[in-house]
């Protein structure tokens, strides 16, 4: 019983980190149709900057903000400098953003060196709780709480505000929104900044769970984030949450109870969803 409870908690906390990473990617893909392969390395960049600030100031909140801003600015530079000329051109987008994986990774290697950075766990998240005989780190509960809070804010922004309504309308029919006299450019720019900023902030938060972040982690995280939005559905906060929790929990249970195929359990979910509901569990129907 203890193992089942611990595995479930591990799965939910892991799923929450996946949700935070995937929600930003889902937003930019859903609204702008941009395939941003640099999202993973933007996530890592935020982590490196955030952890530097955490050590300098001792403040977790400042670290999350700094990580978010650094990643947001990096995303903004990529969008304004390159991607805005490549809307609706998927292959050039893939090539440009793939190139940025190498550029940003090598910049980080050059500036910060090859050492991975250890997580910063604030004193108020330190310690552990014994649940069903298993010692469970408290910061994993904190990550769940932060994930739910950010998810709620994102849902409110997208579903209950005018900007959210424009974003949703833009996802469905950008030409029609433009025809109504709404300039989508600032919305697009803001969404790209915001999506990248969430990735950076989520690295500072999520690295507590992983223990450390290395400059090469971006690609691994990108793959999982893409799987999450395919399962959950593109452009939907709820979809990203459901997809992330489903993948997080199934992947974690697979590692404990089906170790021989644990590397593939996430992809089995992916294949099943693609066969049964190609637009994702909560995505807009294709």
């Amino acid at each position, binding site marked *: 019983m203890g193992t089942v409870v611990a595995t479930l908690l*591990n799965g939910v906390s892991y799923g929450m980190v996946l949700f935070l990473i995937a929600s930003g990617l889902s937003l930019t893909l859903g609204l702008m149709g941009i395939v941003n392969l640099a999202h993973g390395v933007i996530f890592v960049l935020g982590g490196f900057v955030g952890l530097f600030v955490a050590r300098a100031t001792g403040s977790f909140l400042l670290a999350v903000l700094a990580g978010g801003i650094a990643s947001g600015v990096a995303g903004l530079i990529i969008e304004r400098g390159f991607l805005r000329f490549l809307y609706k051109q998927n292959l050039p987008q893939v090539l440009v953003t793939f190139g940025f994986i190498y550029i940003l990774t090598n910049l980080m290697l050059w500036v910060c060196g090859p*050492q*991975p950075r250890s*997580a910063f766990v604030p004193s108020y998240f330190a310690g*552990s709780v014994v649940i069903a005989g298993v010692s469970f780190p408290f910061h994993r509960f904190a990550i769940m709480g932060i994930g739910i809070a950010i998810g709620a804010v994102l849902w409110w922004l997208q579903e209950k505000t005018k900007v959210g309504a424009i974003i949703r309308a833009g996802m469905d029919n950008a030409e029609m929104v433009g025809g109504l006299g709404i300039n989508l450019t600032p919305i697009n720019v803001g969404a790209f900044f915001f999506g990248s900023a969430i990735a950076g902030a989520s690295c500072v938060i999520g690295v507590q769970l992983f223990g*450390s972040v290395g400059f090469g982690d971006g690609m691994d995280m990108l793959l999982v984030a893409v799987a999450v939005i395919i399962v959950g559905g593109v452009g939907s906060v709820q979809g990203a949450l459901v997809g992330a929790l489903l993948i997080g929990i199934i992947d974690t249970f697979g*590692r404990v109870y089906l170790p021989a195929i*644990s590397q593939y359990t996430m992809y089995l979910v992916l294949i099943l969803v693609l066969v049964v509901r190609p637009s994702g569990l909560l995505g807009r129907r294709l």
Partner: protein
Amino acid sequence: MKRRVPCMFFVTVLAVIFFATGAQAAEKEIRIGFITDLTSMLSINGISMRQAAILAMEEVGYKVAGKPAKLLVEDEASDPAIAMDKARRLVETDKIALLLGPFHGGCSSAVAEYVNRTRTPNLSCSYSVPDEAQAKAHWTWAPFGTNNQIGYAGGVYAAEASGYRTATTMSIDFAAGRAFVEGFMAAFSERGGKAVQDQWIPMGTKDIAPYITGLKQADVLVPWFAGVTVTAGVRQIREFKVNMPIVFPQCQFPAFPKQLAEIGDAGVGMVSPEMYVWTIDTPKNKKFVEAYQKRWGELPTSNSGSTYMTMQLVFEAFKKTGGDTSPTALAKALDTANVEGFVGPIRFADGRVGIGNYVIHKVVKVGNDYRTEVLTKYTIKTTKVGNKLVHSVVKQ
């Protein structure tokens, strides 16, 4: 048209002069190729290896056996295909006499087959590859032994010095990881120990909590993590308050001063075998540490120490051949080389595998500083039995 003819003539003449002088230079100077990871998951190792190799070359003034020498360093990016391309270029275009590296196990195995075919003397600058791969690598010398060999040293320590009888293993599922753990368990079981559980974590796994919460109780936990994933693995083990002592079959972090500081308190008390640590208390090592710090502004890692000693071995081999770069002469010189290393003499046994001198060391905290303390030393010899490599302790 008239203008084009003289232009083409001059270009041709320049090209002939360029390639002719290049070929002459290649004949006169000794070229040493070096492939390691400078930009990918093992760059934490590779960069410190390059630094040590450059330091060694600078100390001899880029002259080996009275001839000018050149070090050509290439990046493998932990990708066997890239490593193969670089090896081909170094051997076929740059005409190197000898190749050091690659570092990543997959890259080493890929290149070993190529150097066998081209009869290029090849030296590993670390505890090379698994036994199985080294047994087939006829032109690869492994001065610091194989993956299984250093793991064996860890197993001897766990069973003999610590008296542990049961072990639970948890390793990244990677050829090197399996070899380190197999080597450890070979020594451990030969001394009456047994494994109560083996867990293999797929490469790329970020959250290892499911494996930690599933650990079975034993006398000792034997974990292995690859390259940069060590920091994450060690921290997660500590956060879940695992109450078993930890002996790694191999682990780089205690021998990487910057990584040791990065892991902090989570690493204290962990024990691991290693081919070199900067805290070895000998005049020879103190001199090296001082020179390394002066040149690079940081302490040497285990890979710095092993690469520096590999370079000494290379210099010794060229000295023996009198600067002859022919593969046969170099092979003979390497087979009989004997260089005093930081832990013990470096020389080769069966299968061109080094008689490994390893320290067992433990992470300690002194004030606010994290250090590593040498507990004991083992010499592990490898014997080739048929196609297999078998390890045993050499009594001192």
